[in-house]
């Protein structure tokens, strides 16, 4: 039972992450490889604040602010100056720089040893320590995310972000500032990635730099790509496929040294099939340009 709950919590964390990338990549058209930066910053800031005895909600809010003000602004600046593949490369560099920083800033992040003993969230004097009670919190945040994006999908703002993706020059010559819409999509992306980072840190209660590498960014991107971007079903499906499928492999009784490799082969196979037969993703309506 605990095993199921554990998988479910992970699935929910990744659903939030996939949604957070979806707003930037699917709606905003910015093909980025640095989602683990937002995720990691969220996790680290929350972890440090929680260890210093702050409230979970307060830590989350501070993490969101720090994340938007530092990482969000950097990525926004990149998005303002660079297009398509060049933007992707710049975000890749940003991801690597971030990994270098958290790996080497030993005073703050404890370097490769990671931060241990992160307390479970306490909200209104109730400690969410058991897996089931943690499931409550993560379900709350997932529902919040899904409901938010369900309504966001219909708004003027989201259409405007899509319009900016389709033709920036035309948006500009119709008298609107495309950079404003880019910033909104990046900021929303950062906010939701921070939430999932905070959930991750307080659920696992141990974080180290190896959880926030380029592989993580690529994994999130692949989820969005497989599910299909620019709508609300895609990220859920993508995350579900990528989290649940490897768990079924457990029952096939592969030897341990083969299991991990087989998992990567399976991931690659799914990705290749999707690219060959439905390049816009399972539910997607829009193909990536770069």
């Amino acid at each position, binding site marked *: 039972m605990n095993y199921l709950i554990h998988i479910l919590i992970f699935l929910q964390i990744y659903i939030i992450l996939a949604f957070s990338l979806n707003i930037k990549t699917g709606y905003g058209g910015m093909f980025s490889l640095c989602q683990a930066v937002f995720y990691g910053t969220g996790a680290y800031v929350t972890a440090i604040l929680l260890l210093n005895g702050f409230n979970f909600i307060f830590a989350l809010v501070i993490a969101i602010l720090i994340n938007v003000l530092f990482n969000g602004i950097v990525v926004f600046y990149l998005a303002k100056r660079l297009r398509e593949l060049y933007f992707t490369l710049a975000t890749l560099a940003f991801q690597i720089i971030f990994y270098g920083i958290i790996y080497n800033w030993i005073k703050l992040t404890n370097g490769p040893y990671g931060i241990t003993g992160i307390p479970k969230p306490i909200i209104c004097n109730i400690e969410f320590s058991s897996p089931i009670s943690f499931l409550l919190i993560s379900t709350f945040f997932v529902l919040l995310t899904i409901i938010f994006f369900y309504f966001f999908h219909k708004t003027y703002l989201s259409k405007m972000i899509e*319009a900016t993706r389709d033709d920036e020059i035309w948006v500009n010559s119709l008298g609107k500032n495309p950079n404003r819409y880019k910033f909104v999509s990046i900021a929303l992306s950062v906010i939701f990635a921070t939430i999932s980072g905070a959930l991750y840190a307080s659920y696992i209660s141990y974080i180290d730099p190896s959880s926030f590498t380029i592989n993580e960014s690529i994994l999130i991107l692949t989820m969005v790509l497989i599910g299909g971007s620019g709508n609300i079903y895609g990220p859920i499906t993508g995350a579900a496929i990528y989290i649940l499928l490897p768990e079924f492999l457990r029952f096939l009784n592969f030897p341990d040294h083969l299991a991990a490799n087989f998992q990567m082969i399976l991931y690659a196979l799914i990705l290749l099939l999707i690219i060959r037969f439905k390049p816009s993703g399972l539910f997607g309506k829009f193909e990536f340009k770069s």
Partner: protein
Amino acid sequence: MSVALQIEDLSKHYDGIVAVDNVNFAIKLKTITGIFGENGAGKTTFFNLISGYEMPDKKRIRLNLRFIELPVYTPVSSIKIFDKNADLLTVRERCLLGLGRLFQKPRVFNELTVIENLLMSNKPIKKNSLLVFLFKYRVVKRAKIINSIKAVKLLKEFSLYSKKDDKAFKLSFGERKLLSLCCLMMNNSKLVLLDEPFAGINTMMIKKLINLIKHYKNKGVAFLIIEHKYNILADLCDYIYEMKSGKINLSHINRLTSY
């Protein structure tokens, strides 16, 4: 008749090449002006200078436009009137004054439907917009209804109404041009620059486009058209000039007298 756009001594050079050479030029309100010339005569550069995508060497452009129909939710205090020279303004500010530009390759929002394209191209919500959004819900809602009524009316005029729920990329090349022009009309442009609007579309569509241009001219929109062919311009324009190696020949005039 008042002047919509006044240009004095406009020039632009790229290193040694002079693209636009000391152009003096004016466009009157509610007229159609045509410029024809061969490739490389500097027509597109001239357009880029007027619409603000490139900066001129000498700064002398005066836009005399003010957009008259404001969106309903614009707080009156926030309307700026630009009386200064237009060459200091950005592309966006020129658009707010009522200058619209149709690109040679039709630009539309491919993944949005036709009606969404129109709704997205309406004049932006101006200053204080967040406050208006938060506290004047009914005003915003009324504005939205008015906008959608206007969009439907425009689509019927452009005979695109039957395709209003199609994605824009499904339209043909000519229809996309029409949609682009329709967006500019939604945007209340008072002076529209058309960059080779008749290139690459069939005769029926050309007729349709000419009728629409004449229709909107009667409604008070000024047009500036550049084309390769003199023939199409001849029966459409009030004034026709020739552009040759960066200079506009003011003596080449179709019907009316020079000014």
